């Protein structure tokens, strides 16, 4: 073994030494485990080299020389992979020599597969009789991939273990001669008919691709009539539908005419892909006679189509006695529907809650019909109350921005359900202009239920559009305390610099309702800027409710502060008055990772909260220990 290894090393070193270029020398003797540096150099040179340039030609020559020498398998494999990209007729001969060896035939085929040269097929045909085992199979397969008619004779003569590969190759070549050769095999004894039919099916597909519709149709019809297995027949119908829809329609009609015939589902699905007149003469002509489950399949097949050619069929199906058919039609109208479909779906949606009502809503929300929004808006005028609010919900989910002006008008109506739904919709869709109009509508509101929704919606729209000016302007103009309070609450839903200034300023308002709204709004304010005014409330108010609200707000903001938490709590602790206050503060202080927090606990400690204080101390110590 030792001597063998040494002699092998010597052999490789002498081969390598014949190379001028050290990178190629390294590749010649390459074995797994070695550095790929030399290979990377070649890959890089191919990357930057210009196709057809002298550099690339030189590289091709070097790579081809690797194949003809006593290189390692890995070296040859690498060379073939590079010739896969840059190989030309110049390297054909040297690649060809690898075809006779079972160990290298595959990598040779790998390199040859991408060569467009007409000399490749003769090279393969020349090697075919001499090759054995997997080398022969590799050549047969590549001859099929090359789809060259000149290989038909050689392939047709192959029998025995390689017969199935040859038959498959003939199917890929798919010329008239190839088909004749395949057809003639059917008469032979012991033939695997499913392999033969598979090759004929492939030949049919190849003919269809090459525009030979007549021959394709004949082959498909033959297979539909005589194929040994069902899935070949299914395939023949599929290929036929692509190659010749008219011929396919005829076959589909025949299948659908007889109940219980195999391939019915395939026939229905394929019929859905045919041109419109053929769909009418196949599927739609037979629709009434089909069982409900097949009618569902039919509607699904129609749904997959582009356009609205079959909207009438879908409308008819809405009245079908079978619920599944009706549901399929409702689903189909999302894609296929027109303005009339929208009216029908609205009517269905507004019926009592059923599966169909929910499906109709979903269909309306996802309808791709270009005038769906307009049709829905027309429907709005014909409805009121709950029905109208449900329609507004659909417009909202559709993000129908074109409905904004209409919805703004509806905010100022009399119908509370409509007003609530309109405000909610505008909260999601309203633009800058809508914010101003919504604020105006808010000022005219009398119902408190609608007002709550309106405040939230205006806040949401203002926050989204970053347009709070209409709210603060209205606040400055407003004189009625209830309306001023309402605007403050609205500002709480749209927190920014401007609104914060107004809310904080309102703490000093002379009216109790306004001050109350300001404290409540600040108590829920999301940003740390609210902490100083809340502490100020804590220090100044005589209103116990306001004190509690301010304390809660301050504790929440101190807890969520990113730094100096302990210092913030130091400012809060002096305002603790009751056991409830102490519990609230201890719950938060107990989470601080600061020894100073222990002092804060002691400051807050009192008889009624002894247990909570002890727990806070324990928690702080636990955190500090970590």
């Amino acid at each position: 073994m030792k001597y063998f290894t040494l002699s092998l090393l010597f052999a490789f070193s002498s081969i390598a030494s014949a190379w001028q270029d050290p990178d190629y020398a390294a590749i010649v003797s390459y074995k797994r485990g070695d550095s790929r540096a030399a290979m990377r150099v070649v890959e890089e040179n191919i990357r930057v080299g210009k196709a057809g340039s002298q550099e690339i030609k030189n590289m091709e020559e070097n790579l081809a020389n690797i194949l003809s020498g006593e290189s390692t398998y890995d070296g040859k494999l690498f060379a073939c992979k590079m010739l896969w990209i840059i190989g030309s007729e110049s390297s054909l001969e040297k690649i060809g020599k690898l075809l006779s060896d079972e160990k290298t035939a595959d990598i040779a085929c790998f390199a040859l597969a991408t060569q467009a040269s007409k000399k490749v097929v003769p090279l393969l045909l020349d090697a075919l009789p001499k090759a054995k085992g997997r080398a022969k199979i590799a050549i047969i397969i590549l001859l099929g991939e090359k789809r060259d008619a000149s290989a038909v004779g050689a392939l047709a003569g192959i029998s025995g273990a390689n017969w199935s590969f040859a038959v498959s190759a003939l199917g890929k070549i798919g010329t008239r001669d190839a088909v004749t050769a395949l057809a003639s095999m059917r008469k032979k004894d012991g033939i695997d008919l499913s392999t033969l039919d598979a090759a004929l099916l492939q030949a049919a597909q190849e003919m269809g691709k090459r525009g030979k519709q007549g021959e394709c149709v004949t082959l498909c019809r033959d297979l539909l009539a005589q194929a040994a297995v069902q899935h070949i027949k299914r395939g023949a119908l599929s290929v036929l539908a692509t190659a010749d829809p008219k011929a396919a329609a005829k076959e589909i009609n025949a299948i659908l005419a007889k109940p219980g015939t195999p391939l019915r589902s395939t026939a229905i699905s394929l019929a859905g892909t045919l041109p419109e007149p053929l769909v009418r003469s196949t599927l739609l002509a037979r629709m009434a006679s089909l069982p409900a489950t097949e009618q569902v399949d039919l509607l699904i097949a129609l749904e997959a189509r582009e356009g609205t050619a079959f909207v009438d069929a879908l409308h008819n199906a809405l009245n079908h006695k079978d619920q599944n058919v009706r549901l399929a039609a409702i689903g189909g109208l999302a894609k296929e529907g027109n303005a009339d479909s929208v009216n029908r779906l609205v009517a269905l949606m507004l019926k009592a809650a059923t599966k169909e009502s929910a499906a109709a809503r979903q269909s309306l929300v996802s309808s791709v019909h270009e005038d769906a929004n307009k049709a829905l808006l027309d429907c709005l005028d014909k409805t009121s109350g709950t029905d109208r609010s449900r329609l507004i919900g659909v417009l909202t989910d559709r993000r129908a921005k074109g409905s904004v002006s209409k919805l703004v008008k509806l905010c100022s109506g009399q119908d509370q359900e409509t007003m609530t739904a309109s405000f909610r919709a505008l909260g999601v869709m309203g633009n800058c202009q809508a914010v101003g109009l919504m604020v105006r509508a808010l000022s005219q509101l009398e119902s408190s239920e609608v007002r709550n929704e309106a405040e939230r919606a205006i806040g949401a729209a203002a926050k989204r559009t970053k347009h709070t000016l209409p709210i603060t302007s209205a606040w400055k103009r407003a004189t009625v305390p209830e309306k001023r309070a309402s605007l403050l609450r609205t500002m709480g839903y749209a927190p920014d610099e401007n609104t914060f200034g107004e809310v904080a300023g309102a703490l000093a308002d002379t009216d109790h309702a306004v001050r109350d709204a300001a404290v409540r709004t600040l108590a829920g304010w999301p940003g740390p800027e609210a902490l100083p005014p809340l502490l100020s409330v804590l220090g100044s108010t005589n209103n116990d409710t306001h004190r509690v609200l301010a304390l809660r707000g301050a504790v929440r903001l101190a807890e969520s502060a990113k730094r100096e938490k302990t210092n913030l709590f130091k400012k809060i602790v002096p305002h603790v008055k009751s056991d409830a206050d102490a519990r609230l503060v201890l719950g938060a202080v107990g989470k601080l990772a600061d020894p100073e927090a222990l002092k804060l606990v002691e400051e807050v400690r009192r008889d009624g909260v002894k247990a909570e204080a002890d727990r806070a101390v324990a928690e702080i110590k636990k955190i500090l220990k970590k």
Partner: protein
Amino acid sequence: MSKKSGSISRRRFLAASTAFSVPLIVPASVLGRGNSVAPSERITFGSIGVGNRAKRVIPHFIQQEDVQYVAVSDCRADRLKAARRLVGGQHGSEACRAYPDFRELLAQDDIDAVFIATGDRWHSLATSYAARAGKDVYCEKPISLSLLEGRKMVETCQRYGTIYQAGHQRRSVDSYRFASEVVQKGMIGNLQTVEMQVWRANPIAHAREEPVPEGWDYDTWLGPTPWKPFVPAHVNGWNYFWDTGAGMIAAMGCHYTDLMQMTLQTDDTGPVEFEGQAKWPDPVKFYSDTPISGEVRCKYANGVTGVMVQRRQFNDRYIRYIGDEGWIQVDDATNRVTAEPESILSLRGVSSKSWSQTGGHIRNLLDSIRSRKPTVCAPETAHRAMSICQLMNICLRLGRKITWNPATEQVVGDDEANRMLWRAPRSPWIV
């Protein structure tokens, strides 16, 4: 219930098995899990490739009331044994046939459909073999390793009328569908960029050949790829070699290109330009040859740009749609959706299904098997999504911009790039 062409209503359970033999005739009730769907109406499944991914997905199949799992196959005996136990266990029985050679599984008449979760090198090939055997297919991603291989798979499925679902299951997950709908409804304005992030790869070091472990059919493991000696680290890290995988841009990126295609409604076409740069493994230390990191851009004819970025960690993967009025992003590891403006999120449904749940995607396949209607990720759709990743890889490997004609599926004026669209499989495998 509609009948699948000549098969669903007939349950056959007559097949003989091979190595891990079970009774020749198995009554349907033995395999049956529930009583709500008659055994005669269940869709029978077999698995090709039963490694880690299969272990996670097979339970989703078994959970479906109208699925009957009857067989598994793998070229590794250890995996075959474990999978047989998994399927048998979930069915309340050990009755699951096992085949070392997937062709034997495909020859069984009582199997309607297969779940393919082999290594990537086998995906399109096994799909083609299954289609030729008349089986419907659920195939894991990436669905092919070369562009032409994918096209051939599409044609094979078309030729046999095969119902096919690619494992691009994010297409069926609420969060991604929601993001897609948001974009399509113009809620972030005009879409300008789709940003997709996959993780940085760990290159695989050089190593020497070792004996093939007992119970491995290594030749079948290699399948259509050029023969190479058994090197454990290279076998385990197959994702990072062009021979056996396609790197992370394809392996994970195909989920995102699929979502991009779905959102742009370009399922039957694709971008027209590709350009990018990658960092490659140090050839002195490493044998793997796919990129470690990189960035590659593709541009659609309408000006929308897709940017695939390979960087950071596994948990940092995401897809983000950027419009001229906002953006929406889905973080893959958490299934979290974020957006600007934030109000968009109020439209989201209540479903919290994550990307790892394939149930809805599988349900869609089962419904399609019955109706023969194409699935949500039919061959052409899956192929086009995969093509984008393959072209990104070609662009990176050649280190230059390429112009793509999606109609002819040819690179314009670049013969070298066009050659890289096809890799002939090793014999005796036929795509």
